[in-house]
């Protein structure tokens, strides 16, 4: 099992689109994926669960990944989060 702390860096936080991207990515792996925040645990493969976290920019999450491909899954998910979910939109004009 891999446990790793990450911080949400993208401006808009973990709202619907980033959550959808993360769930989609996580679902490609066999490993179970959970997120801990506020002492609360959600299924990282459930977009509704992820959205209930309402994690904003700066929020710290602990990822828990457990399964046969946990290493690859952890790497990919962490990269997506650190990458700000590729968020390139919405600089106020």
């Amino acid at each position, binding site marked *: 099992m891999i446990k790793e702390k990450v911080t949400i860096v993208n*401006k*808009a*936080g*973990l*709202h*619907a*689109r980033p*959550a*959808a991207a993360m*769930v*989609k990515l996580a679902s490609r792996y066999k490993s179970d994926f959970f997120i801990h925040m*506020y002492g609360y645990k959600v*299924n990282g*493969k*459930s*977009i*509704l*669960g992820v*959205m*209930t*976290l*309402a*994690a*904003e*920019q700066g929020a710290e999450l602990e990822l828990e990944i457990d399964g046969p491909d946990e290493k690859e899954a952890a790497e990919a998910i962490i*990269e997506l989060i*650190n*990458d*700000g979910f*590729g*968020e*390139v*939109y*919405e600089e*106020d004009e």
Partner: protein
Amino acid sequence: MQEMILSGAPASPGITVGKARLYKRRRPMVSGRHIPDMDVEQHINRFNRALSVAEQELQDLIAGQDDEEAVELLQAQVAMLNDPDLKKRVELEIKQANRPADAAIDQVFGVYIDLMEEHQEGALKRRSLDLADARDRLIQLVNDNDDTREIPDDAILVAHELSPREVIEFSEHDIRGIVMDRGGITSHAAILARSMQIPTVVGVEEASKSIAANELIILDGNQGKVIVKPSTDTQKKYDDIITEAARKQAKIQQVCDKPNETVDGAGFTLRANIEFENELPSIERFCAQGVGLLRTESIYLHCDHFDDEQKQYTFYGSVLEHTAPHPVIIRLFDAGGDKLFNVAEQEQNPFLGWRGIRMLLDKKTVLKQQLRAILKAAGRYPGRLRILVPMISSLDEVAAVRKAVAIVQGELQKEGEEIDPNVPIGIMVEVPNVAIQARAFAKQVDFLSIGTNDLTQYLLAVDRGNERISGLYSQRHPALWQLIKQVADAGKEHSIPVSVCGELASDPAAACCLLGMGITELSMTPSALPAVKQALCTRGISDMQALASKVLESTTVAESEEIFTNF
């Protein structure tokens, strides 16, 4: 009755006048009773059918959308419907608590919404709306209560809050504008309104309470104001603003519709400089014939790593898709290496330093990833994509880039990818030695693109950001024009296209002078296109040639300035 001004946040620009239509989403009724065991299966089936119908509705909306943000938002809604936990929990509610399908959906979504609202603050506030929207639609569907929304045509919609789906549905009915009590400028409704160019003001507290149905309102999406029952003076003022804006747009359209030629029939090509996907609509709006300079730095600056070939490929593909049948000229990553890699010491002179192709040739993986994405896109749209190499200052660099392109093309072919074997490779003319040796470079490349901003700065040794000396910076300097002429002549001699993609091209008088020198391809920021086209269309090529010779004879900036002013 006096007019009333309500303030909110300007979510989508534009001004519109119209009658207010109030829209209120009704929360569907939910049955309270319990169901007998024998009905459990039927309710589970109803729920599953509702899921698939709701998904199909969203897929239909997605199919009709070409805005990428709208598509992503709708896809997120699809993901909610496909959530494995949602399905499990609703079915469990039906099975174990004997709730009817509608109440089970309401119960399960209720838990999610409560949790989300408990956790959210600031920016994410209101985002539970997406969940509420999915819940309400599912409940309507399980109850076969297909309450099609009452959609007002040709009115300004006033609502407490709209879901993404509602905005998209209303946009299909020609609503003129949107006023919302809630939401910020980054709310989903606002993002969509912008992409669909519906003037919108959000966060106007109490709007839906203080505006009565059918009241005349003015919506000012530029300033984030809503004027209720405007006085005749205010109406007059806004009528004038609207007329003026319409006149401007009509003029742009008029210019756009003209053929691209001078009064005496000399042709020219005008393209757009862009960097972001959301600039694509402006290409059509200002009638650019393709993209003369696609900056790619934003891709990298938003990533911590360089191996996102797929993301780049998607971006290039989308630009090519939107600009058919015109060409798209993609400039390789043009930034200082210090911004990207952990270089210990800061460069003393970053503009004279490790940047553009100098950096790319050292960082082979970065170059390779970008070339892979570009060349794959070129294969998909053969004959339309061209590669522009920045910061070239030697022929060796040109040879090295050509070699890298050939290697990547070979690899792609081996992988079974389509390629465009003739993809043109051109260079930026921005380092003065390249302009001086233009003939030698013209032999080795497929086109030349003059970047006048950097060329001027290097030529005159002026940092335009340095206020003390910025007065020395002038793109009307005779020396710059003499260099441009040499480059134009070299291109002609070797029969390769020469274009200008710097700020100079967006100055109508300078554009005339460039055409007079035989440079027929100009690229600029899209909004500058109409004025330049207007100038080029209303004059003759012989006058432009005369202007060019006069400018070439001038010896000081003051002299050339005067020549341009009198043109």
